[in-house]
C-alpha cells in the first residue's frame, strides 16, 4: 500500500511555465529521469496516453489533472504536485473533445496495480474540498505548496 511518502517534495514544482500538457510532460520528464523515477518510456507513452485518454477531472471547485501512464515506464512510484503559472486547456477525462482550464496537476507514477487505490481515493476526496484547493493557490513557494498538499485530510468518503 502506497502512503503519504509517495508525494515527493523534490518533485514539487510551483509556477511551471507551459503552454500545453506536452510541455508539462517534457519539463517534468527531465526531473523524473534525472532523479530516477521513470525510464525513457515515460515521455512518449504519457504524451500518447494523454491525447487518447485525457486526465483532467471535472471536480469542483476547479478542474485538476492527474496524468499517468503505463506501469513499465515507472521505476519508483511517485506523486508530483505541480502548479502551473497560468491555466492551460486540458482534455476532460469524461469527454476528450471538451477542454478544462487546468492550473493544478498531480502527475502520478504508479507501477503496481492496486497499491495506489486508497491513495487516489484520498486525493479525490481532497480535490473536492474547497478550503484545501484554496490553500494550494495561496502557497507562494514550493515548500509552502508541498506543505499545503501534505496537509490534506488523510481519509476518503
Amino acid at each position: 500500500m502506497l502512503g503519504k511518502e509517495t508525494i515527493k517534495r523534490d518533485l514539487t514544482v510551483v509556477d511551471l511555465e507551459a503552454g500545453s500538457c506536452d510541455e508539462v510532460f517534457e519539463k517534468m520528464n527531465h526531473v523524473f529521469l534525472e532523479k530516477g523515477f521513470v525510464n525513457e518510456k515515460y515521455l512518449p507513452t504519457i504524451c500518447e496516453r494523454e491525447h487518447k485518454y485525457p486526465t483532467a477531472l471535472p471536480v469542483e471547485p476547479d478542474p485538476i489533472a492527474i496524468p499517468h501512464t503505463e506501469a513499465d515506464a515507472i521505476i519508483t512510484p511517485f506523486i508530483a504536485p505541480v502548479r502551473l503559472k497560468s491555466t492551460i486547456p486540458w482534455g476532460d477525462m469524461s469527454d476528450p473533445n471538451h477542454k478544462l482550464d487546468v492550473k493544478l496537476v498531480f502527475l502520478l507514477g504508479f507501477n503496481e496495480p492496486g497499491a495506489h487505490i486508497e491513495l487516489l481515493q484520498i486525493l479525490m476526496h481532497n480535490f473536492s474540498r474547497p478550503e484545501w484547493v484554496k490553500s494550494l493557490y495561496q502557497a507562494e513557494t514550493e515548500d509552502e505548496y508541498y506543505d499545503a498538499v501534505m496537509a490534506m485530510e488523510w481519509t476518503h468518503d
Partner: protein
Amino acid sequence: MARVICACGSGVATSQLVASKVTRMLKDRGVDADVEAVDIKSLRHYINGADAYVSIVKGESFDIPTFDGIKFLTGVGADQEADKLAELLKSLK
C-alpha cells in the same frame, strides 16, 4: 452474482478507483456485485455477459445499461448514480 464493468484508458488508475467505490456504494445499498476494472482496449471482450457498464471515458456504447463513472470518481452525483445502479441490479435477481 451481478457483474459490473468499469473501464478507463489503462485499467490501472481510474477504473480501479471507480470499481472500488462502486463496490462499496453497492454494498451500502445491500447489493453484492462483482465489479471489474478493465482497460478500454479489452472492454469489448469483458462486456459480454455483464449486467452494467460504468463508463469513465466517452466512446463506444454497448447494448447494456450504462452509468456515469465520472460521478463515482468525483463524488458529484455519486449517490443518485449508485441508487440507480443498485436498483437495476436488485431487479435482476
